[in-house]
């Protein structure tokens, strides 16, 4: 059997008295789109922070295609091909949209030329053009990223993940704050991406989750409550109680399932 794209072993992270991620062992095989859901405070984003190196785990290990990446720094993990977007949208606000993509592309290099003008890089220029096209921000290319609407910033973040050609993409609530039209476009984009790269997505919008996910992991209080395909998850009693519990939501889930 091939190594899973992402595997964690007894991963634990405490913040003072709070155990945000509690002895979490997770194995996500490659080639499938995984969604992680769970109530607020379940430890989803903390898990992403541990995987991407923004936080150091108290104990446990993280493996990326069988390679132990526990304790590596964020930029080292990024260079291995794990890219992520942030729940609170995070771009370079004073750089233009094009420059955001530009520097993201060039950051992958070991050597950053100190004197040659960045704009002379033909390969990067083409890739930036393509990516702008893909995410539909070509007309806003010269705008400072900080002046974009929330939805456009989210799209730019996805573009930044794209242009860095990741192997594993961690998306933290990518559609949060998007208009319905923007959500639709982002979901289409994510689906298309999932054909070539492994994606793990944290999402609160259940219609999005049940629409795109191959597998769903439900987290609660730092641990795994359930794991399965969307059908199994929606029929899981514990999940219903812990997360989808409110009766008025049930129809909604069924609706989403059969949509």
């Amino acid at each position, binding site marked *: 059997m091939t190594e899973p794209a992402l595997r964690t072993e007894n991963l634990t992270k405490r913040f003072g008295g709070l155990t945000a991620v509690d002895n979490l062992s997770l194995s996500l095989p490659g080639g499938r789109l995984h969604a992680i859901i769970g109530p607020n405070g379940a430890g989803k984003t903390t898990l992403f922070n541990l995987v*991407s*190196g*923004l936080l150091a785990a108290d104990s446990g290990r993280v493996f990326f295609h069988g390679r132990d990446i526990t304790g590596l*720094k*964020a*930029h080292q993990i*990024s*260079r291995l091909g794990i*890219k*992520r977007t*942030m729940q609170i949208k*995070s*771009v*370079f*606000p*004073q*750089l233009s949209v094009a*420059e955001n993509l*530009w*520097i*993201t592309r*060039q*950051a*992958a*290099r070991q050597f*950053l*030329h*100190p*004197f*040659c*003008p*960045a*704009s002379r*890089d033909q390969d990067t220029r083409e890739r930036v053009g393509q990516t702008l096209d893909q995410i*539909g*921000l*070509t*007309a*806003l290319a010269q705008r400072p990223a900080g002046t974009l609407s929330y939805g456009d910033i989210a799209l730019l973040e996805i573009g*930044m993940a794209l242009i*860095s050609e990741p192997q594993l993409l961690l998306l933290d609530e990518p559609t949060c704050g998007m*208009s319905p*039209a*923007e959500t639709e*476009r982002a979901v289409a984009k994510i689906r298309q991406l999932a054909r070539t790269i492994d994606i793990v997505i944290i999402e609160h919008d259940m219609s999005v989750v049940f629409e795109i996910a191959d597998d769903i992991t439900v987290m609660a209080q730092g641990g795994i409550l359930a794991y399965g395909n969307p059908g199994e998850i929606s029929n899981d009693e514990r999940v219903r109680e812990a997360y989808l519990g409110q009766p008025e939501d049930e129809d909604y889930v069924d609706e989403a399932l059969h949509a």
Partner: protein
Amino acid sequence: MITPTIIGRAMLIAFGAFLISVPWLIPALLNRFWVSVIAEIMIWSLFAASVNLLFGYVGLLSFGQALYFGFGMYGVAIGVATLGLSFWPAFGMGIIAAVAIALISGIFAVRLTWHYFAIITVVFSLIFYFLAVSVKPLTGGDDGINFALPPTFSFGGVVGSFSSENFQYFFILATVSLCFFLMHCVIRSPLGKAFVAIRDNDVRAALIGLNVYRLRLIAFVMAGFLAGVSGALFAFFGRYASASYMFYHVSGEAVVWAIVGGAGTLFGPIVGTSLFIVIRELVSTHWEHHSLIVGVMAILVVILAPKGLVGLWNDRLARWGERGKDASIRTSLRTDP
């Protein structure tokens, strides 16, 4: 058509032409004294550029750049006065001393950011200030080191030396221009873009694969180089080195010059430094509290033009450029499908 780019180029050419003509123009219009004031302004502009590289482009506010300025000064002074070096080896020694101490202190300092970084840079410069004051045999303590400057070069019968005021002026102009040109290149390069990315959002910078610590250290050493060159030039200019130039008061002045002129712009430090030194020279002979004017102006600029004078000018220019374009741009803005 006149575009902001053309205006910028024209101003740059005019400014360059002015600087080249200073040794003849200024004595004719004012008096020779102002030639050396302008030479001094150029040196201090380079020093302010060192603050600007760190604060304006990497987002690290250093109140300790005087340390590297001082090492540049002492490198030259000790090289000439104690070791008997000639001009260029002494110049090299000043720069190398500044870069070396910047590397050593940077290794510790750039682990920190914001006020912690500012504090540690002050602490470093205070430590070395008191060291320099107390190690009298090496540094001359409070009295400093006076020295006679060897000629810059002698080629056949031609001797270039700072004893010629014009030679001194043009040597300083050439060196400062070269440093600003290098900084211009760095800012436009992939490395410079990475600096700005770190300034804007260091977490995101790490997530796209930038080694934030190493890049900050590179910037810190580069800033040490600029400060070291300006310190070495100032030692040549004054034939003198003193621990008083390592005090954090000197660093603080450069921070004010850079911010008022416009942090994050190449020419901001030149504008800020020129403004304040000209005010100082005009007012200080009549009124001893000239730093009051400096303080009021600094406060006004920070409130009214947070991007500094050059930032204000750039914004005006950009807005003016925008007005030139017609409304067709606006209709081409992307609309949601």
